[in-house]
């Protein structure tokens, strides 16, 4: 008797994340497992629904305004008086999952904000006031994030939201994937630009200790 197929493994299989050998092995296992076949169909359906929702959201997203705001904000931040970075500041990125279609579809439309974080800062109300139109965009994104990335769920709606120091995954069409970033004391953001056949993963990191 074979053991049940783990959800994460099935998700990775669905996303094409497994090695060819792993995929072949799992494919054979799925062929003999009606329950796994059903779960796989559900994953496909769910991904389609999410992608449709993300397409709708990305069509409304004013990415230029969003990035102007981000870019304008980073150099203006006062130098922080944070305690020395602790290991707790190191946050692994989430594995590829159902989140990806939301972010991917949005990113394809343009360069798209995924996260803004300040390592170790969880106050949710930090930062200067955000233009209302951008706050609205982020709110729209946060609704789609459910409680996964905690986008803007614990701060006033007109503030840059807290992300709990946690990054969600970015992955290009070809499969480049940001797994982990330790921003140390700096403020940073990570986003994706799909550019014809080339995926560009951008990590934009403020330089508060410039030489």
């Amino acid at each position: 008797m074979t053991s049940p197929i783990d959800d994460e493994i099935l998700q990775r299989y669905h996303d094409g994340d497994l090695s060819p050998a792993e995929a072949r092995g799992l494919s054979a296992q799925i062929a003999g497992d009606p329950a796994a076949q059903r779960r796989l169909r559900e994953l496909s359906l769910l991904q389609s629904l999410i992608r449709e929702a993300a397409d709708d959201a990305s069509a409304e997203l004013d990415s230029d305004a969003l990035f102007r705001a981000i870019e304008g904000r980073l150099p203006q931040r006062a130098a922080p008086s944070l305690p020395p970075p602790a290991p707790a500041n190191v946050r692994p990125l989430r594995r590829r999952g159902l989140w990806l279609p939301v972010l991917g579809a949005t990113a394809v439309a343009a360069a798209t904000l995924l996260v803004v974080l300040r390592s170790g800062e969880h106050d949710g109300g930090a930062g200067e006031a955000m233009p209302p139109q951008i706050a609205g965009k982020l709110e729209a994104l946060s609704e789609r994030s459910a409680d996964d990335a905690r986008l803007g769920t614990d701060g006033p709606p007109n503030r840059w939201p807290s992300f709990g120091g946690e990054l969600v995954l970015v992955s290009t069409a070809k499969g480049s994937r940001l797994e982990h970033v330790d921003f140390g004391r700096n403020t940073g953001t990570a986003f994706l630009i799909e550019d014809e056949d080339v995926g560009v993963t951008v990590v934009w990191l403020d330089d508060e200790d410039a030489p």
Partner: protein
Amino acid sequence: MSARARSLVLLAALALGAPAEVQATDASVSAPSEPVNTENTPPVELLVVLGSREGSGVDPQLDALPALRKPPFDTFTRQTVLERSELRIAPGDVRERDLPNGRKVRIALRERLPDGKVRLSIAIHRAGKDDYLRDLNLTAAPGDWLLVVGQKHERGTLIVGVRVGPRP
């Protein structure tokens, strides 16, 4: 691995036979003493660009990277290539390069995957300090770029690009 541990690894590697004379711009932490097996060492391109809002003009070498002409990079009206080089890094090896602002970029090839992707670790810092990018782990597909942006340099901003695979 902590910065201290990485420093110890660096010192140990140097003590155990790395070349005594390390070029100012290319420090290989675990420099191979034998001819490089290029089959197992995918080329890694390192690109360093200075983006500035003073003046105008984009280096023609950047034509192949149109993302730099899109937001938010289009705010840099002047983009100058400061360095473009190719590194050969075998799995398990670490390479360091000096950046023009005095920091070093350290690139480690952690693993080469069967599908052609590689797993990289990248850090940017001053010697003995963890003052910028402590650690970044990336699974990189050939041809895709990683851009680390934001270091201040000469009234501009450095864009450090890393790409796996031969130049197009």
